[in-house]
């Protein structure tokens, strides 16, 4: 199948280094301490953060650090074919990966004896749910006012028809090509998350990796804008 036509356009009309439209909103769940919706094209994720609050299970307490818990789940209606997948291996792994990514950017040493819960629900899945979840979680954590080192952001890139492609959608993702998901801390310029599937030669990987990192930086800017806008709104409300 042809994923990039001779004009250099992809199936959904994007260029190789073009991302899908990002729509993000903060403060969507009223009961939660922090929440956000993050959309990338047709992928839509909702995140809610509770905490920092008292540790529910004392035995889980860590010495001098806050406890971060994360639960990732996909809504049954999020994909075309409905399948039972609660607590399957994929979501267990993703919960672990997202938890550890967020742990790296939260200043856990400032919040000892407390726990932070992150709940992530995929409402629509069209590729790149992992990245969308991390971005949504970052927004929700910022909304909850939890101290962070940096805004952890993530983006994926792939390699199809011998072209590196930014931000794969579901069709491109399931084409069997490589899929590289990168999560970075943009200000510190450090890579926290890196996952890759499928086979890629070393040199190609480097270009794909670089493309994904560029994507991350672009997302970081967008995330920052959204947060700043939200802060402005809060300011207006206080003034009025």
């Amino acid at each position: 199948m042809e994923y990039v036509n001779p004009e250099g356009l992809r199936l959904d009309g994007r260029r190789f280094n073009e991302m899908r439209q990002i729509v993000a909103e903060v403060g969507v769940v009223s009961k939660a301490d922090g929440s956000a919706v993050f959309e990338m094209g047709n992928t839509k994720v909702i995140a809610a953060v509770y905490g920092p609050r008292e540790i529910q299970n004392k035995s889980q307490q860590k010495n001098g650090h806050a406890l971060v818990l994360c639960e990732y789940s996909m809504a049954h209606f999020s994909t075309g074919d409905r399948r039972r997948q609660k607590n399957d291996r994929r979501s267990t792994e993703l919960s672990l990966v997202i938890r550890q990514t967020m742990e790296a950017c939260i200043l856990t040493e400032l919040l000892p004896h407390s726990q932070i819960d992150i709940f992530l629900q995929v409402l629509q899945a069209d590729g790149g749910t992992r990245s969308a979840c991390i971005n949504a979680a970052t927004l929700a954590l910022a909304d909850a006012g939890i101290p962070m080192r940096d805004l952890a952001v993530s983006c994926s890139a792939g390699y199809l028809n011998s072209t590196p492609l930014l931000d794969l959608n579901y069709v491109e993702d399931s084409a069997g090509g490589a899929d590289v998901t990168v999560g970075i801390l943009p200000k510190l310029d450090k890579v926290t998350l890196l996952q890759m599937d499928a086979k890629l030669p070393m040199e190609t990987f480097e270009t794909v990796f670089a493309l994904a990192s560029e994507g991350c930086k672009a997302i970081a800017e967008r995330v920052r804008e959204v947060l700043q806008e939200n802060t402005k709104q809060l300011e207006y409300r206080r003034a009025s």
Partner: protein
Amino acid sequence: MEGRLANMWRLTVNESKFVETALQYELRVDGRGLYDYRKLTIKFGKEYGSSEVQLGQTHVMGFVTAQLVQPYKDRPNEGSLSIFTEFSPMADPSFEPGRPGESAVELGRIIDRGLRESRAVDTESLCVLAGKKVWSVRIDLHILDNGGNLVDAANIAALAALMTFRRPDCTVGGENSQEVIIHSLEEREPLPLIIHHLPIAFTFGFFNNGNIVVMDPTYVEEEVMCGRMTVTVNANGDICAIQKPGEEGVNQSVILHCLRLASSRAAATTKIIREEVEAYNREKNLQKVKRHSTLAKSEVFGPIVVVKEGHKKSSDEDKSAEISQEHVELKNSKEQEAVASPATFKGPETCSVSSDPAIKGKANDSGDAQKEVTGDVEMEDTPEVTKHKDGEKTLRDAVKPKKKKRKNKST
């Protein structure tokens, strides 16, 4: 989860400080260099597709089994490969019986990604009947002892088990040629899996905010380190999978450095695995050859040679097949002892002397000859019928060579 954390074995502050400071001087607790690998030993079990890997203190067992199942609907002509991990509670105090924990799931997923997404095992050749029956290969990985770096050890165990695995041969036949006949191991030589390349996992540990990189971290180092990355590469320099699950951030250059290190190591590890597998295969073949030399001698007698050779080729020197044949021979010879006179037994010369048995023998011979012409269909009958004549001789031959050898040695 609660229990797991409660049972966690924690290093004391002193110990972890010691490990960290030593690493700043490029010293490791077990005396290795930063990028040295621990000693790798691979052992194989008696059956096909079992392996035991020891990487330093870490001990992992791999076992591969296959089963005919209905394929997935979206891939009707592909077999499947699934990986199951079992963290035995005896390996580590934090492992608990029951449902696999997070780390068990992650380990399985890393190995799964390395093997499956990079198409290391040819799944299309596992198809028997498109849309109806395909082979489902299952890899079971049992962690027997946790000495750190389970991923690498488990990955090697999986590869070694896959490379020595043999699945039974099967053909499609029966009505409308929709039935699958599985040939037993005695009937036909079992087939190996087609493995295109060997994806080998290398795990790195990061210390001191990602400034110190260590290869193959031990159990103690795993407790101290702030980040981890597993890179799966093959000997051709391709990257098959990467897993860096969050944790402490590191610079891009460090990651690329790790990738290069891993791919420079891949060839050596591939060589070790291949050598071990070859040694194992050679040993298995030798066992077969020994048994065969005895049979080859018996083939001199009688006109059955052609049939037997044909049969031999089809079974392709299968050891167990011979065992069953010998059993048949034994039975037949015993039956003959019971029914016929012992004279018929001492070979073709005595047969021609006595009148009645000789005729019977000749009749048998001619019958055999005819059966030979008719071909493979009656193959199963012919060896049995004909074998009673040379049956005893094969048995004698089976014993004799040893004696001869001993005599040769003594002289």
